[in-house]
């Protein structure tokens, strides 16, 4: 993984003054520590692999008195979200974590949380949907919740998990919408990395106590989320739509403010890597980004004009950023770690939709890779770049990478020749 800490703090390797200590921890625990620093007041969750250690750590933190929070054990994810909704609507800062089937079980209440405009933050450890059972990463679980009104972030490193949780509360409480932070099963969730734990007082400055827009008050009971007629429902939807639109600027601003306080920035909705002079750009998300960075570095060293766009926020979708990129590159490849049956990869579809009304439309390629925890290695990425460099247009709408098939019909792309030499053919 990229050592983002040393890259972004300007102290020549010294720790940023906001850092309390550096711990080598897994991604799940990075989330737990962030929840503690955010002074969350209610935690309700149901255990599911690989999310469990998020909540285990939190239960220790709460029972040890390190965090003054109500920890509610529940009988299902549906109840977990119900508890978050109840506590959030009474003004508390609420948190839950889940994964895969658990997230699916929450579905109805995800609509409730967003429709009630509650700034709940959830960590979802991306795990493939069953059947067949899998506990390994892909993104179909969270992307299936695309239209529930939740903001969605995808993290690349454990540090980003921690930092995004802290940013998420600020964003959520500004726009009054819930936020889901996604991290890849095992690749992040159970991999230890050094994580800078910020000082509590700096977090407190960045993230003061929640000021709720509205609260339930048992002394003055009201009906919340009550029945509404056709004469006003549409307006209420418009408000939610508008809040999500407003969130784009808020995400960018919060990232800038975070950067000023903590010395780390994630670029807002996207982060670009070697895109200034790139002709071919790969658009992808989550841990595959850090792998792609290695492939890009290597191809760049060989002289290939390749670049990378990291999709950090999926909702709201980074429309402006992608359109701006399209103005200056020839080809964009989208690597989806998900599949929408009957269509294509989901981020590919979204990217295509964004570009249709753009003044310039580069060639767009959709790749499917890494489903159900299949490794995405630098070789996988190079295979994709190889395809991109060797094709003016995609041969088909969906190109499956590393599919074990005799009749996939996928033509072996020729090994390209670049100014810096021949690209290695291994794994391509």
């Amino acid at each position: 993984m990229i050592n983002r800490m040393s890259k972004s703090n300007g102290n020549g390797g010294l720790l940023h003054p906001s850092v309390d200590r550096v711990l080598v921890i897994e991604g799940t625990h990075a989330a737990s520590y962030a929840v503690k620093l955010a002074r969350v007041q209610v935690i309700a969750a149901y255990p599911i692999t690989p999310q469990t250690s998020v909540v285990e750590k939190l239960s220790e933190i709460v029972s040890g008195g390190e965090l003054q929070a109500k920890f509610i054990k529940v009988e299902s994810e549906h109840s977990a979200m119900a508890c978050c909704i109840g506590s959030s609507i009474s003004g508390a800062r609420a948190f839950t974590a889940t994964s895969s089937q658990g997230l699916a079980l929450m579905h109805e209440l995800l609509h409730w949380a967003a429709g009630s405009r509650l700034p709940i933050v959830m960590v979802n450890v991306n795990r493939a949907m069953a059947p067949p059972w899998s506990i390994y990463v892909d993104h179909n679980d969270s992307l299936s919740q695309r239209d529930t009104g939740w903001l969605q972030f995808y993290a690349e490193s454990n540090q980003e998990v921690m930092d995004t949780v802290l940013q998420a509360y600020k964003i959520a409480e500004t726009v009054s919408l819930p936020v889901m932070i996604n991290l890849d099963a095992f690749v992040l969730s159970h991999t230890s990395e050094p994580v800078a734990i910020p000082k509590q007082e700096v977090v407190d400055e960045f993230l003061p106590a929640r000021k709720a827009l509205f609260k339930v008050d048992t002394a003055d009971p009201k009906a919340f989320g009550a029945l509404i007629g056709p004469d006003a429902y549409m307006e209420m939807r418009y408000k939610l739509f508008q809040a999500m639109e407003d969130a784009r600027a808020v995400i960018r601003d919060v990232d800038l403010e975070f950067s000023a306080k903590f010395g780390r920035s994630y670029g807002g909705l996207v982060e670009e890597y070697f895109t200034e002079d790139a002709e071919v750009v790969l658009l992808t998300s989550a841990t595959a980004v850090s792998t792609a960075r290695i492939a890009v570095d290597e191809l760049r060293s060989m002289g290939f004009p390749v670049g990378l766009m990291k999709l950090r926020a999926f909702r709201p979708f980074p429309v402006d950023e992608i359109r701006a990129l399209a103005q200056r590159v020839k080809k964009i490849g989208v690597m989806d770690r998900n599949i929408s049956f009957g269509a294509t990869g989901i981020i590919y579809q979204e990217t295509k939709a964004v570009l249709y009304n753009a003044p310039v439309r580069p060639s767009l390629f959709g790749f499917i890779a890494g489903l159900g925890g299949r490794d995405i290695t630098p070789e996988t990425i190079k295979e994709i770049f190889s395809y991109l460099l060797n094709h003016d247009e995609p041969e088909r709408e969906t190109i499956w990478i590393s599919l074990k098939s005799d009749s996939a019909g996928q033509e072996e792309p020729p090994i390209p020749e670049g100014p810096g030499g021949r690209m290695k053919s291994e794994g391509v």
Partner: protein
Amino acid sequence: MTRYKYTTVEEMPPLAFSLESTRKIPTGSWRHVRPVYKNKTSPCEVGCPAGEKIPVYFDLVRQKKYEEAWYKILEDNPLPGVTGRVCYHPCEGQCNRKPYDEAVAIHNIERFVADKNLRNKKLPQVSETPKSEKVAVIGSGPAGLSCAYQLSRKGYRTVIFEADHEPGGMLRYGIPEYRLPKKILDKEIADIESLGVEIRMDSRIGGNVAWSELEKFDAVFVAVGAMRSRKMDVAGEGLKGVYTGVDFLRDLSTGIVPKVGRQVLVVGGGNTAIDAARSAVRLGKKATILYRRTRAEMPAVPEEIEEAEKEGVRFEFLVAPAKITGVKGKASKIELIKMKLGEPDASGRRRPVPVKGSNYTMAADTIISAIGEEPDLSFLPYSFLKKGVRLFVDDDYSTGVPGIFAGGDAATNPNGTVVNAIRAGKDAAKSIDEFLGWRTQSNGLSHDVVHPDDVNTFYFPHEKRVKVPRIAVEKSKASFTEVNRTLTEGQALDEAERCFTCGTCLHCDVCLTFCPDVAISKDKDGEYVIDYDHCKGCGICVNECPREAMELVPEGAHEVEEEAVQA
């Protein structure tokens, strides 16, 4: 109905909620059953002969209010340090936790509370005004002490006449030091005396004190206990080396070491037999208990039997003495006869029947007979009604002679248990109070007893019963040091935490938390108030209550009840 006032999206709030309070919608009218708070009786309270308010004092223990907990016990029992050690704890047999995992160690908590107050000499202030009547109590055993104590709390001047040199009766002379240290007994008797109870030692009624002395009193409570060992009725019982359990234990209690041989045979299956056998072990002897029925029928407390086994006491069942023979007036052999179990007798246990021709002989120089005790009532000046060897008393402990009451082992308590004697003393005090023209309030126990199924065990994780700390067997066998230790504070708090507190509201807020209509609130005194205008009668509070301190009643039933009260 108020229409919303917004016309454009800009004016609208982010979330749809009613503009007015929903309080004006009386959803309570949908209700056909209503929840009410109603404390019930826990089975342990019913099981405790002394009627201790166990859930209440347990809650005080949990709050570390040990003095208040002690005061709560003292309402019903002035000897918690004693019963906390030697009681056969029928409360635990009734405990609702028993079918769930293991009964709560109630008697150990009782002992913990008593021992926490070992240096506390400040007994609760009794509010009753002093009364002019005087009551005499004969005997300072648990029944006499309990009766005198309760009468004293009711404002009577009470005098106990004790024939012995020291007070306590069987508590002092019958229970060995390793089970009940004398200093505990002395402390609790001193507590009773501090209330104004006078104990006159060496005052044997019908002996150095004339019966007529009692005529100065307005009522008498006869609690002389059962201090005389029953005879085995076999030849040779008078030989040297044959003791009664009562005498053997009395000697040890007064510092006399009885002369016993290496092999001690104890006849009997009750607590006296076990006490004698375990005491013999402590004198460095081998002890064997001979019992005419089987282990299942032994009246001794099961824990005591186990302890005796641990310490090496041997048991022989289905055997009875036939005769004892001796040389030069000293016992040397015992002839035994084998028994088998026949039809159940009056006690419900199967009657032992001798097996003809099964006699056999054993060498025996020390035989302790402990087949039961009976009262010595020869001091009574005229004939009272009897039931067997004991005094007959009515349900109110009256003997038939006006003003004379009786209880404890001498009358009501054939099993000779301490706690039943305490209960007799307490209840007799109530009757004496009424006899003297006063009215005693009831203890307020409701007739609804909480059953195991009524407890919402979701709130109570399985937890093992506390393991009572004790000194090592090798050590306990070698001395009269108390075997069992008092629970540590941590153990006591953990064990108290295991108590379900059946039927007593602890203001845990579960009802309030779960009410989906926010129809439960607390008043300024912290008591729950149900808003029946909005309670829909869903029953979640009642269902969720961990300890059955609420119930659902049909709508309208409460009105009938209220009218009945008014009428």
